[in-house]
């Protein structure tokens, strides 16, 4: 079992034996067992028995709720359960069951689903996961946000190639947190297919919503469009209490930061365009 800390939250993970993601997560590892109140555990099994309770949903993934836990599960064409995630109300005990007869890539599946539950847990503390790449350059951070398959990773790679001193805090779902009227971005070990992340916390200065285009262009978003873009690209909590906090946070972020529509071509030159804009329009650096 490994103990980790992401920002102020401590948790343990009992990964499946031999997972390559254990080494990839070691920058968040701590040795202090105090205040560890969330425990993730993977179980590699030959068969998954569903818990008792009312089943919700008409297609994968289904949910089961009973007095103790909520479970999410997925079935295959033979109606057999491939995986099941089970958690209690405050995410103190999160169990992931993977059917080794049904899942080809156990380690990757484990990483993806532990990541989903990790983000759910963090939302309960007011962290807001944004579908974005968080980049820091010279201690100033910005986010390139977009849905999957829009080219976020490609633009991030271009940016790193053009500006090797840039740091990718999280390439897929960084956590945002409002503290002292500032918006911070926080890295975690769950960062998408390339597992690119740093154990860092940085003040966010601007958010760019990426769109593929034939020309490079960056346009300011109205506060309303900024809010809607944030809503479209964030994960949303399922619990009502966390939902209230979530809506408040999205509202505060859209009012306190600047949001932009980033029209980008599939070329490194888009990175230069982006950084020039960030320096001039966001940081007001005229040099």
């Amino acid at each position, binding site marked *: 079992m490994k103990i980790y800390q992401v920002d102020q939250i401590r948790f343990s993970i009992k990964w499946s034996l031999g997972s390559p993601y254990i080494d990839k997560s070691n920058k968040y590892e701590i040795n202090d067992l105090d205040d560890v109140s969330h425990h993730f555990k993977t179980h590699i099994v030959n068969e998954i028995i569903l818990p008792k309770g009312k089943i919700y949903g008409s297609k994968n993934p289904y949910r089961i709720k009973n007095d103790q836990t*909520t479970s999410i599960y997925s079935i295959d064409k033979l109606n057999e359960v491939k995986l099941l995630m089970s958690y209690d109300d405050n995410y103190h005990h999160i169990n992931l069951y993977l059917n080794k007869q049904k899942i080809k890539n156990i380690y990757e599946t484990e990483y993806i689903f532990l990541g989903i539950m990790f983000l759910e847990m963090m939302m309960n503390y007011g962290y807001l996961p944004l579908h974005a790449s968080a980049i820091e350059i010279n201690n100033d951070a910005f986010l390139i946000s977009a849905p999957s398959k829009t080219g976020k990773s490609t633009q991030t790679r271009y940016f790193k190639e053009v500006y090797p001193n840039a740091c990718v805090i999280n390439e897929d779902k960084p956590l945002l947190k409002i503290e002292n009227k500032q918006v911070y971005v926080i890295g975690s070990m769950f960062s998408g297919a390339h597992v690119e992340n740093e154990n860092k916390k940085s003040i966010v200065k601007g958010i760019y919503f990426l769109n593929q285009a034939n020309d490079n262009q960056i346009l300011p978003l109205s*506060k309303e469009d900024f809010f809607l873009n944030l*809503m479209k690209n964030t994960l949303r*909590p*399922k619990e009502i209490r966390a*939902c209230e906090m979530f*809506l408040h946070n999205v509202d505060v972020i859209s009012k306190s930061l600047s949001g932009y529509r980033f029209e980008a071509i599939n070329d490194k030159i888009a990175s230069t365009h982006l950084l020039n804009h960030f320096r001039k329009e966001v940081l007001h650096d005229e040099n």
Partner: protein
Amino acid sequence: MMKIKEGFVLRKVDKKYIVIPVGVEVIEFTGMMTLNESGKTLFEALQKESTAEALTIKLVETYDVTYDEALSDVLDFIKTLKQYDLLV
């Protein structure tokens, strides 16, 4: 008769009205709806069972619209709610 399913909440954020799903009961709809003032009025009215006619009268009483304009808005709204499976 129709009403909004359990598990959808309407919240005012700044000047906007947002409908989002909460709870495990709502797992098919993961998006959100933004509503204007009249949409918000209809959504609130549909927290209890109602009919297209009752909703139309509600709009006529609340806003400066004719019966036909209100009915058209109500039918559009109901169509959208049905599309996202928000009604029972």
